[in-house]
């Protein structure tokens, strides 16, 4: 047991390491950041939602930085696009932290976070299951065929176009800025990195080539989550350094194990199982919101 100085509660070190290691393992296995599993896992462990969200961001920053180190060696980061996304992300996460603080004061933070997670986990879980199912049936996933068609999207028709040599694109700056803004806001409120929303959006919306997508997304995630950690520390003082250290340790070790084991496993099987797990977790969030509560009063307006 170790006492967390900011959360003001003792936690079982082994349990936190196991959970963060498990989440890191899954993220290494599937290739997602894992913030959207880590934050709810912390909340289920009894960590107050504000601390879970704000502290989770620091762990995501660690994971994404280690990912970037690998990606830059492969020269697979579109820096210009990354900067543009990050400018949107900075404004978005600043607004997100502001909204987070407002909701915390109003006593509505838990509700909003639960609702967002409900929607997010359900949709990601559904997409993963569908992908696994199509793969199992030997069909191509619908999205891939769209990708191959040379359709012009919004990104090509809007004004303020800019050239992105690394991605080989000549598109408007508005969609990347808007995308960065939206992801940054979600990241600040939900304690996620947002890579699993950003990556499909970059492929389908911006038409970026897949080889630069991961590195660029990691860059954006690193910038926004780092900023969120600093802003949350200043605005709500909910970042717990001890918890953050434990999460980083467990997450990093778990991710390495996951990457290694993942090489020998079928991706679609893992995705299918994870998709089912996410759907189950979203059902739990829905259940908690729908069933009549045994206690009709709650303490609100703070960390309590």
């Amino acid at each position, binding site marked *: 047991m170790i006492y967390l100085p900011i959360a*003001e509660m003792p936690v079982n070190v082994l349990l936190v390491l196991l959970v963060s290691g498990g989440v890191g393992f899954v993220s290494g296995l599937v290739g997602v950041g894992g913030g959207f599993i880590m934050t709810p896992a912390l909340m289920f462990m009894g960590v107050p939602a504000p601390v879970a969200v704000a502290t989770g961001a620091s762990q995501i920053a660690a994971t994404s*930085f280690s990912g*970037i180190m690998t990606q830059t060696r492969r020269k697979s980061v579109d820096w210009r696009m990354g900067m543009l996304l990050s400018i949107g992300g900075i404004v978005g996460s600043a607004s997100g932290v502001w909204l987070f603080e407002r909701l915390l004061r109003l*006593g509505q933070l838990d509700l909003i976070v639960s609702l967002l997670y409900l929607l997010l986990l359900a949709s990601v879980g559904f997409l993963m299951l569908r992908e696994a199912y199509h793969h199992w049936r030997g069909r191509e996933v619908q999205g891939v065929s769209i990708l191959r068609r040379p359709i012009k999207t919004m990104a090509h028709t809007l004004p303020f176009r800019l050239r992105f040599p690394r991605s080989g694109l000549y598109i408007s700056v508005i969609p990347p800025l808007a995308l960065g803004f939206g992801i940054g806001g979600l990241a600040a409120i939900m304690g996620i990195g947002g890579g699993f929303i950003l990556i499909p959006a970059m492929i389908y919306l911006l038409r970026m080539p897949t080889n630069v997508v991961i590195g660029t997304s990691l860059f954006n995630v690193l910038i926004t989550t780092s900023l969120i*950690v600093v802003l949350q520390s200043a605005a709500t003082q909910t970042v717990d350094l001890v918890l953050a250290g434990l999460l980083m340790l467990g997450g990093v070790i778990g991710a*390495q194990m996951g990457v290694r084991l993942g090489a020998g496993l079928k991706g679609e099987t893992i995705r299918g199982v994870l998709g089912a797990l996410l759907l189950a977790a979203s059902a739990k969030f829905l259940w908690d919101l729908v069933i009549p509560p045994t206690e009709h009063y*709650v303490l*609100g307006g703070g960390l309590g």
Partner: protein
Amino acid sequence: MKRLLAALAFLALCAPAAAQAPGDVASDLPAGVAEDSITVSSDYRGSYVTVFGVNPDRRGRGDIVVVVRGPSESAVVMQKRRVLGLWVNGDPVRFSEAPTFFAVLSNRPLRSIASAQSIWRYQLDPAASAQLETSTGDTDPSAYRAALVRLRRGQGLYQEYSSGATPDQRGGLTMYQGGLFRAVVRLPANAPIAQYHADTYLFRDGRLISAQRIPISISRVGIERRIHDLATNVPLIYGLLTVMLALAAGWVAAFLFRRT
């Protein structure tokens, strides 16, 4: 018995402790705490507060009430309402003052020791200690007051005992021969880290005869203190430090990964 003698000797030492008796009440009630400062380090899992004292009445008449209070802060209680099939928080009622920790111990049920007015006047139970903010609109505040006490009791922050400590209770007040009493309260790990007070009251025939206030400080030490001080005093630097830790962890991970 040895422990009791030690306690008595201890009492002789701490008897001249500063007294803050309410109003016109005497403060000749000798009482002390086993530890007047509790430290919170990284292995903190809560602690115990032990209050010793002696009933000054030679014939042992009267009843003892011990209250351990944490600092008062504002609190908000909300009621769950059904909106579009979902249970959401609504109708907030604000308390300008509510104790963050409150334990009341007595040798027999409080209601048979003191009148309702005395309980209210001296704030001897958690409900009496919660001050409503003036404007509550048309909502009934009594249900909210009860809910506040119930919720905090569920968190172990409000405790009430009217007998000696038993194995299945976390605290209690025990009377010994010669008017000596000993009150023990379990301070859970989620109780706020702050300045506390242990107040000891002597009631006779429902009237307050004597009272004594003893401060108890709970404070962080070592690394816990440094981290907390950083986070509250220089939050910006604290945030940057956390980010640097994250970057260092990420760098180490990438380095190790390349090696293997």
